[in-house]
Each structure stands twice: as structure tokens, then as C-alpha cells.
């Protein structure tokens, strides 16, 4: 899942860091699998934003796939 999941609207600011979210690489893990994806991330504290579309779409699909591995 080496993919990019940047929402069209990147106009989000991390509070209280006060930083605008920027594209960044995030490590996700689930049932023993680890992979890197591109997500909006706060450059200061590193917190990532998982959008609704991603969570109920591709991410859910991959979760179910991994559970059946």
C-alpha cells in the first residue's frame, strides 16, 4: 500500500502546534503488516490526518484483506 492519500482540501492546521498540515510519510500497521503511506501530517508534532474517505474506503478494504491473510 505504498500510496498517497492526500485529501483535496489540505487547509487544516494542527492545534496547538499552529502548523499547517503538509504531505508526509506515515507508517501504518495492522495484524503484523507494516506499510508507508502519504498523508497530511503536522510538521511539528507528526500527527497524521486519516480522512473519512480513506477510513471507510481503501483502509477498510486493506484491513479486511489483512484479517483474512
Amino acid at each position, binding site marked *: 500500500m505504498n500510496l498517497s492519500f492526500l485529501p483535496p*482540501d489540505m*487547509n*487544516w*492546521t*494542527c*492545534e*496547538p502546534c499552529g502548523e*499547517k*498540515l*503538509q*504531505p*508526509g*510519510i*506515515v*507508517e*501504518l*500497521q*495492522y*495484524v503484523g503488516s*507494516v506499510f508507508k503511506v502519504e*498523508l497530511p*501530517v*503536522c*510538521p511539528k*508534532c*507528526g*500527527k*497524521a*490526518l*486519516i480522512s*473519512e474517505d480513506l*477510513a*471507510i474506503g481503501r*483502509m*477498510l478494504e*486493506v*484491513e*479486511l*484483506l489483512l*484479517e*483474512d*491473510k
Partner: protein
Amino acid sequence: MEQKDLREWEARCIQEEPPACRAGCPLGLDAKGFVLAVRDDNLPGARAILEKSMPLAGLVARMCEAPCEQYCLRQSLGGSVAIGLLERMCINAVPAKTKFLRLPPRPKKVAVIGAGPSSLTVAFDLAKKGHPVTLFHLPGGPGSWLCKVPELVLSEGVLEEELQRLAGLGVNFCQVSVLGEALWTQDEFAAFYIGQDDEYVEGDLLKLGVPDSITFSLETERLFTGGLSVENHKYRFITDVSQGREAAVSIDRFLQGASLTAARVDLRHGKTNLYTSLDGLQREEVVVPADGLGYTKQEAIKEAARCINCECLECVKRCVYLKEFGAYPKTYARRVYNNSAIVKGNHQANKFINSCSLCGQCETVCPNDFSVATLCLDARRTMVQEDRMPGSAHWFALEEMRSARTEGALIRHAPGKDFSTSLFYPGCQLAGIRPQQTLRLYGYLQELDPATGLWLDCCGAPGHWAGRVQEFDEIMKELEEKWHEMGEPLVLTGCSTCLQMFREHLPQINVESVWVLLAEKPPESAKACAPMALSDPCTSRHDSKTQNAVRAMMEKIGQSLTPLPMSGELTECCGFGGLMQNSNPDLAKKVTAARVTQTSSDILTYCAMCRDQLARTGKPVAHVLDILFQDVAHPASEASPSISERRKNRRQLKSQVLSKYHGEQPKATEDWEAIALTMSPEVAEILEERRILEDDIRKVLFHVQQQGKVFVHGESGRKIASARLGQVTFWLQYTETDGSFMVESCWSHRMIIAGGSA
């Protein structure tokens, strides 16, 4: 599952047993497949089925006396399907294939003596296998008595054509003046077949003795015989053909030095273990050919349509879930076995295993008691044990169970009592779905017996259904201890599932359905409504006592009940059982929809979960408590409470009991409980579908208040916050005005965000 378990499972499902017609065909022809192909106007397909099992199909299809018909299940309902006439019609309509597959030539030569039907069969079968065959016939030409069959039945051209097929397979025809012993003592042949359905030198056949009835081998090595039917035998032709075929099998084995008997498939003579229900079938008369001789294509199609397509599928016919996965239990057992055997790759049967409602209907309707429920539950347990149960499969139900067992749980004697003669155990679903009625019922039980205590808890069924043996066993132990501490009173359950769990897993506890007690003394306030169809919960399947009690109670009250076909022992699951609704919500919806369409009346039930589940379709569904206590009745058309409401209901019921009966101030609520939320009905629906509780949202917001971490949108100022709660990360988009939160959306995932950097 071990391989031997798989064999046992497979043996139980007889769906793959042959239909009676096939079992009654001496050649084992797939007669059902053939008839159905004719029905579907697929004549080339039908002919291909004939060719597959028949030697010299052009001949056999025209001459066979169709002994299969005597076993046909259509027989008692208008007469057996005219398989023989259908075969004739088909063979006349579709030309023969000209090319035959012949195996590579083999070295040893075979002499086939005589040219009756049995000999032609042996020549055909062995030549196809590559053996060099020489057929010895009398000057009249090959065919023996077939040459005397009237032209109308078998035209000369047909026999001619079939003989050419034999020649095409390399059969060498050799004319001799007499058939006799001299022919089966020649040295150049490795084996001899003596077809007795021809004319022989007087006395020579007598010297052969009697052949083995299965292998058709004779005392003298190398000699085989057949074609033994007497002239007026009803099935003379096909019996001789069948004997020829059996002898050919033996000769082939003999030439290869193999055992004549090992793993030989016996003729079935119509015997089969296939079960086929004739329920609801109408009588239909046999189609008689207009010309008195044979069918036209249209007549044949009409006749073939009388075939009832013999098969079992008793379980599949009734179970939406078994239908959904496209096969039947024998195949499913194989899938489940493969699923556990697989090391790398996808576990494709996980979904199947986790979708069964474990309702047990299949076992009840199966002629061999095949329990898909047991198959699936065992598989679930193995998956849990081997740590490969998908985390999401039963997660929500297990969380529900754990919540009901902590924040919703309570056990007390009646106020002012230090003992209980009985404990009312409503079950977590009744408590969550109908808290006020639960309280009202408890009040009534106290009127009947003031020493009735109350026990709010979950029976652990979700843990059991999820295959979590250890967790479930611990719950059982705890429940037993609590019961023991309360002085081991009678337990009165308000839920069939709880009753089933207690009975099956804690047999030492004396337990009864509360409806059995109420059937004796229904409350005065009980009032009948319009007639309704009573739906028994699937966990009451084998509990006729409770089922009858509910009916007796309704009769006393004057509530009339309309019939529901699948009731009592045959009742169906509402879609919640076995956690189907958790692991396969789409399928559960279909199951629920199928159940409510079985009646045009409103439905009445005595299981809170059934009420909740069935009512989701929009069908009016009442709970018996709506009839028993008019003052707290809910309208049958009322929507089901949301998952959030159910949690809140359980907590509130517990504090109400504490304050009303025991004068106790309920414990202070959690900090997060005070957070005020608003949301549109659409958002509420999204939460329900995604199984996100308002409690979860409050916890996320509380987390934000503590940590102060949140994403804010540049223009709109709306916020997104998240928190990991247990195995799930919840995300929330909202706006905040004066300390009140307007929820715009909410989503979740199970993946863990290990770390990120820009």
C-alpha cells in the same frame, strides 16, 4: 479439522448421492442431467450425456428398456418420467459425433466371441481403451438378435452405423461358420469374452460353468462371459449390455494385472441415499406421443419438464445464508477444511464461517442431522485458538457483552430480603431494548412472589458464538459463583438465548423461562390486540415448553395468532443469532427481510432481539410485554432503539433499580458522560451503521479537552479530533459552540498509526 473429520462431515451430507433414475440405470447414466438438458432444449448437450455413459449410444439409446423409470420419484405423481422415450427422441434428433477418442494402442489381443449386444459392448469398451479386439460373428452379420428387431424400432441403417463406429475404433470383424469352444482355446489371444446372447454349438456353453456375478470371470483363467438374459427378460437388452460392460472392466483389469474386485463400483439397482422431498408437488400426467410411437421435440420438452430435479438441499432451501454462498454443506465442509489447512494465502471461508447464525435449523431439517452450526462454531474456535480470527468480525458484539457485564450489571435480592426464592434474569437485550418494561415485569414478579431478586447481566452468548472458549468459560464460572452466593435460587430468564446458555452450559442451575410462569398467571392488565403471527426465537427451537407456554398465555388473554410457516422446531433466526449481524450485516438484512415476508400479519415475539431486528425492516413487530402491560406498551411500528440508546438504557435501568428498590444513590457518572452532543438524524444513522456509540464520541471529545490536540479547518473553523479507544481509532468532525458539540461526521479504523513525519 482433521482429514478424518472432513470425511465424516462429507459423508453426512447426501446431496451428491445419485438421484433414483441414475442409481437405477445399469450404466450409471446421469439421467437427471440428460432429462434436464432436454427440458432446457439443449439436445446436443443431452446427447453428449448419453455418449458419456453408453457404449454405442445410437443403439443403446434406442433399445434400452429403461429400467431406471421404475425408480423415478415422479412415479407416484402422474407416472415416471419417460426417460426411454426421451432418449430415443434425442438420439434421432442429434447426429452422432464421428470422431471418437481412442487411448494409445496396447499390446495384448482380445477375442470377443458372438455379436449380440453384450459382445458389441465389450468390443466398444475395450477398443476405446486401446486393446486390439477381434470380434467373431456368424455369417448373418454382427448383431445377433438385433438383426431381427422390427425396422420401426431399429432400422437397419442404425446397426450399420454403429458397426462402422466399431470398425473406426479398430475392431477387427471375423466371420466364422459356428461359434464354439474352438474359438476360446486359440493361443494368440490374452483374454476371451464369450457373449452368450448369440447362437452357439450345442453344449459348448454348458462346459463354461457359472461366472462370478460381479466380475463375470469364469473358472478358467482368461475367460469372461455375459449376455446371460433369457429371451423374454423384461430388461434383456440393457441387462446384457450391462453385463458386457462389467466383463469389459474385468478384462481391462486382467490385462493390466490389476485386481478384478478392488474399488469396483457396484451396480446400485436403484438404491440411493439421496433424500428428495415431494412436499407441495402437484400431480402431472405423462405426456403421450401423439403418433403413438415417439416424441416430437415439443412433446419431449414438455415431458422432461415433469422431472422434479431430484436433490436434497432441504437445509439450503430454507436458509438464506446457506443459499448465499452458492453451494451445500458437503462443499462447505470442504471449504472450511481447506480454510484451516491453508498456510499462505487468503482464508476465503472466513466470511462463510462467521456468517452462520448458529440457529440450528439445518440440523433439524436435514435427513442426516448435518449441523452447519457445529461446523462453523468449531471452525471459529479453532480460528480464535490459532489467533487468526479477524479482529473486526465480532468486535462490536463482544464490546456490548463486556459493557453489559460491567456498567449494566447488577445482582440483588428483593428490597428488605436477604434471600431470593427466584432471580429474574431479563438478559442484556431486554434490559437494553425495553428497560421500562423490564422494570414493570420485575414489579409484577414481585407481586407474585415478594422474594424475587433481580439479576442484570449478559449470559455470555456473544462470547460463545464468537468461538471465544476461554472468555466464555470464565463468564460461566462467574455466573455460577454469583448464583451460588445468592443462595442458588431458581433463575427466571426473559430471553431464550440466556435460557439456552444456562441450560447447556450451567446445567446445575435451576432455570425456567419467565413466560412459563406468566402463562399460569398473566397480569390483569393484559389486553389482546389485532391478530399477529408469533415468531419463535431461534434459540427456543428445542424448547417446546416455553413455546407452548407463550401460546397458552396468548390464548388466555384472547390474543389470536395467525400461522407462520416456519415456527416451533422449524423456526428461523431473525438475523442477529450467531453474530451474523456483526460479521455480515448485509446478509443479516436479507435474512431479516426474508423472515418478515413470511406473513402479512404483524409479528409478535418474546425475544427482545428478534423484536429489534425484525422491526428494522419497517414491519410492525410487538413484544409480548406490549400485550401483558398496556400501561408501558410500545407501538408495534416503533423504530428500534439505536446502539447508543441501548447502552444508556442499561445504565439507567441499573440506577433506577438501585434508587427505586434499594434507596441507593447511583454512582457518579463518568466525566465524559456530561458532554452535550447534537447531530442530525442522518449523522445518527451513519453512527449506527458504523457501530460508533455516542459514548465513543464523548470519550474522544473528553480526550481532546484533556490533551488539547485537534485539527482546525482554515476557513470554516470546523474541527477534527481522534482518539484510540481499545482496538479502534475513532475520528470526529464537529463544530463547537458554547461548550456544545455539533457532530458532523464520525469514522473509525482499526489500523494503528505507528508514526509520521513531514
